[in-house]
Structures are given as structure tokens and as C-alpha cells.
């Protein structure tokens, strides 16, 4: 396995694991407070939809000319990566609330318990689980597709994603509780760095740039992005909590 393939597999695994932990928390909350079969049904249907998306779009993406593919994929990965990284930097600097699976589990469970359970099939549990898994999984499916298509190895990306889901699912079933001890915020920081680095690398290459040393320059690029992100964390921490409000999260899609 080459360095680029290892980076691809690691990035997809981490991104998928993070999103799987978040989806698992919601499915657990709905399942334990309402109706397990409906919650698992919603999860299963969402996973099927995601599999169909990957299977349908994967071959279509590989038909694109390599230059076009790299510009499009690089641009999208860079957009996603910068969003993940911005939030991860804010969390690491203490300017944004950290993700707390136990608190989210409690809030979701309370919300689910407040809705009356109808006799027979529990549509609420099905819908909430379906939506959670689909929304958390859609971005991962996209990452699997883009990474895989660019490296001509959608299979490796899919295997890495499946391994992450199985690992999270196994841990969740064993504990029967939200995976609060998973270093989710650190993982999100790492994913943000990797997505941003790959996005820069492929986007620039697609635009016509030649990286010194080709793929070898990916490792120093990841190091530069990581160091720059850490420097931003230090800079924000240095501003202190004395003057003015912290940066508020912006509205819209919560990607990371």
C-alpha cells in the first residue's frame, strides 16, 4: 500500500468513524426510549440508500477526465475540509462547544420520550434514525466517492468506511451506550487537516500545477496544514476570554 493509499484509507476511516459515532448516539437514544425494531429499520434503510448512492455515482465519477475530476473533487474536498478544520480549530481553542455524546444522547432521548408512541409500527423512531444515519452518512459517502475516484480505488475507500462503521457499531453494541470516550474532537481535527490537504493537492494538480516530487509532497503539505491549524488554535487561545463574545457557530449544515 502506497503512502497516498494509506492516507486515503486513514482519512476515510476517521471521517466515517466520527460520523458513525454521531449517528449511533441518535439511534441508541431513539431505540432505547421508543422502539428498537423501528430504529434499526430506519438505520438499515438509510445504509441501503447510502450504498446505492456510492454504487451509482462511483462509476459515473471515474468516467470524468482526470483533470476535471481533480478540480471538482479537490474543490469540494477543500470546501468540506476547511469547514471541518474551522470548527475543529474553534473547539480546540475553546471558542466553540465541544461535542459531548452523553449530553446529546440525553437530549435526544428526552425529545423522543416526549412524543407519544402510537400502537404498531413506530414511525417517529424509524424517521429519526433514518434521517440521522442518512445525513451523517451522506458526507462520508461523498468522501468515499471522491477519495476513491481520485485514487482509482473506490473499493479501498469503501472498505475503510465499512471497517469504521463496523468498529463503531461493535463498540456501541458492546457498551449499549453512546461512545463518549471516543476522542471525537481530536478525530475531527485530523479529518479536517486531511481533507484540506487532499483538497489543496488535487485541486491544484487539476488546475495545472506540478507538485515538487509529485505525491511525495503530500506528506509535507499535511504537516504544513497541521502546523498552520495548530498555530491558529494557539493564536485564538492567546486572545483570552476577556473581551467580547466568542465566535458564534454560523447557521446551516453542521458538517463536523
Amino acid at each position, binding site marked *: 500500500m502506497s503512502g497516498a493509499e494509506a492516507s486515503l484509507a486513514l482519512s476515510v476511516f476517521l471521517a466515517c468513524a466520527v460520523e458513525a459515532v454521531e449517528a449511533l448516539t441518535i439511534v441508541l437514544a431513539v431505540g432505547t426510549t421508543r422502539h428498537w425494531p423501528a430504529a434499526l429499520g430506519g438505520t438499515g434503510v438509510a445504509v441501503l440508500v447510502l450504498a446505492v448512492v456510492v454504487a451509482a455515482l462511483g462509476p459515473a465519477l471515474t468516467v470524468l477526465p482526470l483533470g476535471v475530476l481533480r478540480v471538482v473533487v479537490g474543490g469540494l474536498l*477543500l470546501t468540506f475540509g476547511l*469547514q471541518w478544520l474551522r470548527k475543529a480549530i474553534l*473547539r480546540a481553542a475553546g*471558542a466553540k462547544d465541544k461535542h459531548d455524546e452523553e449530553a446529546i444522547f440525553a437530549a435526544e432521548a428526552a425529545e423522543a420520550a416526549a412524543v407519544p408512541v402510537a400502537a404498531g409500527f413506530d414511525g417517529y423512531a424509524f424517521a429519526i434514525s433514518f434521517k440521522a444515519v442518512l445525513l451523517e452518512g451522506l458526507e462520508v459517502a461523498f468522501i468515499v466517492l471522491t477519495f476513491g475516484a481520485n485514487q482509482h480505488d473506490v473499493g479501498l475507500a469503501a472498505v475503510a468506511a465499512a471497517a469504521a462503521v463496523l468498529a463503531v457499531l461493535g463498540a456501541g453494541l458492546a457498551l449499549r451506550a453512546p461512545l463518549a470516550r471516543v476522542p471525537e474532537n481530536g478525530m475531527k481535527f485530523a479529518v479536517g487537516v486531511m481533507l484540506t490537504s487532499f483538497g489543496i493537492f488535487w485541486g491544484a494538480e487539476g488546475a495545472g*500545477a506540478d507538485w*515538487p516530487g509529485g505525491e511525495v509532497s503530500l506528506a509535507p503539505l499535511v504537516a504544513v496544514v497541521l502546523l498552520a491549524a495548530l498555530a491558529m488554535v494557539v493564536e485564538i487561545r492567546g486572545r483570552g476570554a476577556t473581551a467580547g463574545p466568542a*465566535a458564534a457557530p454560523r447557521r*446551516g*449544515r453542521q458538517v463536523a
Partner: protein
Amino acid sequence: MSARRILAAIWDFVVGDDPRLALAALAAIGLTAVVCAFGLSAWWSAPVVALAALRWTLRGARPSATSASRTSS
């Protein structure tokens, strides 16, 4: 679901909650293409633009006393 809602969902998925960073990604790749078109070495431009834009979006951020324990998505 109407076409407008589908487009809004796609926009939300791709652009996310901070359009400035989507613009930064476009600018990073666009500038690289322009520099390449002049026959110059351009590999440095995308990281410089992307990281400068990221730092710019964080210019007003500062630590909050309450951020350590609450939840967020």
C-alpha cells in the same frame, strides 16, 4: 419536495454553513489555474490562499468561558 428545496439542500450540503470558505476553495484553485496559465510554478498558491482564508474567517474568534462542557453538532 420542490425544486427550490432540493437546490437549497444541495447548496447547504456543498457550501455548508460558511460560504466564505467555499469561495476560498474556489479562489485557491482559480488562482492556481491563472498562475499556471502564465507558465509559472503555481503549486504554492492553493495552500497559501486556503490557509490565509481560513485564518481570516477566524480573526474574531476568542475563547469562551462556557465552551468546554456544552454540546454542539
